[in-house]
């Protein structure tokens, strides 16, 4: 199910619908993601963002649904938990299921995420941030045309998360996969993405291009304007916004 030949889109979704029994989770959603485009998907819990990502990843086996979905063959998923096999060491986790000839690529990917020299460590010996970096290396070594990330930094502490943002941005700039990052963190979305979608009750209610050259940070008037707009779309009212 690759996108049409000659298309510049990595992902083409038409009228995608997903239901759990009587509840419609995704309601005839359309979306194109261009090659190399970094898209962040925001939404309250229960808005359907995980269902959407799982549909793209092909992990929604028993879910009723209709619509057409074209995603690249080379697709990697980063989960919220690093999901490393505890009985395989770091390099084996990175190259899991790859032919033996790709071992060298695994080492390179590990070096790219700053874990050169930790090849033979067991996952249990790594910190949460390091484990998530191994998971990133495992995704990158497959040279994905589409990277799906389901709240990949949600379980990390605030300082580690900032470092991981930098690393992810750097890696995406180098490898240029299309990215769909599901998150509930508005700042994370603005910091990382080219484009931000807001999902609400199974429909996109916002599709916003983030055009902020240079470093993105709080206090910058345009950053704050986007943040404010997104928060109101997510149903956070002004008082709560000021408290945040």
């Amino acid at each position: 199910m690759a996108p049409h030949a000659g298309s510049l889109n990595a992902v083409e979704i038409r009228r995608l619908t997903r239901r759990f029994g009587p509840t419609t989770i995704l309601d005839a959603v359309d979306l194109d993601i261009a090659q190399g485009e970094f898209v962040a998907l925001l939404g309250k819990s229960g808005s359907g963002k995980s269902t959407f990502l799982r549909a793209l990843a092909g992990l929604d086996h028993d879910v009723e649904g209709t619509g057409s979905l074209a995603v690249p063959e080379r697709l990697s998923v980063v989960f919220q938990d690093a999901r490393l096999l505890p009985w395989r060491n770091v390099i084996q986790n990175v190259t899991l299921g790859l032919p033996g000839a790709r071992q060298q690529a695994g080492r390179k990917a590990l070096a790219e995420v700053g874990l050169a020299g930790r090849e033979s460590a067991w996952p249990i010996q790594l910190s949460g941030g390091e484990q998530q970096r191994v998971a990133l290396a495992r995704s990158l070594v497959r040279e994905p045309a589409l990277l799906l990330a389901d709240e990949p930094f949600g379980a990390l502490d605030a300082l580690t998360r900032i470092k991981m943002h930098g690393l992810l941005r750097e890696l995406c700039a180098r490898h240029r996969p299309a990215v769909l990052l599901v998150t509930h963190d508005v700042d994370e979305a603005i910091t990382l993405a080219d484009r931000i979608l807001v999902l609400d009750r199974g429909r996109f209610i916002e599709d916003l291009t983030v055009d902020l050259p240079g470093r993105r940070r709080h206090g910058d008037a345009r950053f704050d304007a986007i943040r404010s707009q997104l928060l109101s779309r997510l149903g956070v009212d002004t008082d709560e916004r000021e408290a945040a």
Partner: protein
Amino acid sequence: MTYLSGNGRGETALLERERRAAPAAPKSLEAPAIPAIRRKRRLGPGPAIPFGLQIGPAVLVLAWVAGSGLGLIDPRILPAPWTIIATFGELIADGRLQSNFLTSSVRALLGLGFGIVIGLLLAVVSGLSRVGEALIDGPIQIKRAVPTLAMIPLLILWLGLGETMKVTIITLGVIVPIYMHTHNALRAIDERYVELAETLRMSQRDFLLQVVLPGAVPGFLLGLRFAVTLCWVSLVVVEQINATSGLGYMIELARTYGQTQIIIVGLVVYALLGLASDGIVRLLERRLLSWRRTLAH
């Protein structure tokens, strides 16, 4: 403190706070001079005693030595330790201990070996395919409900009194825990890893070899520990029924002649075998499950 550089205000504040704190809390200033204070954990049983596990058995042996030496223990009930040691020597000298030990070990190892291979094969077939499960799981559950030792009369009629019968009984006993725990572990593979394997587009073969089978190793090893214990229990029983060789036979014969010391030698050998095999399984665990050990180990 007259000259202060660039961001001096913070420094002054800091110094002043220190100065103020100094006379008020002299004890806290002394504290770093005794850095080796390690506060005891308030809850829990406290630190481990060196050689703690050996103390209990040593006390028992000492009581035995003292009781026998002072004539408090009737040697017909429990012979003195030195009598046991002497009997050990005699049994080794005339070769009886070695030959009986060898016979028993061969039986136990054959039964254990067959049991592990068969139990493992059945568990893998039943754990990895629905058809296999439909065919295998039911019969094993029924087998589990029938104690192996209760099947001895039937097996004697089928297989006679020879070695085949004895090894078969041990094998039948060993199959059950190996099967149960391995099958359980194969079925309990975390669904998150299955999802991972799907997104990594792993082949069926890689999925089995990298995810399912290694993930089931802890379960298998647990089954193995039960199996080893069961193997010795079965051995003792089959050797006391119609056997003409083996440690169990040696003990049975000694009972007939009232040779308590030989019975005790036999029990000591059983104990050593049990300890040794448990040690081997634990060694295996340490090798195979090194990924579980944390940095603290």
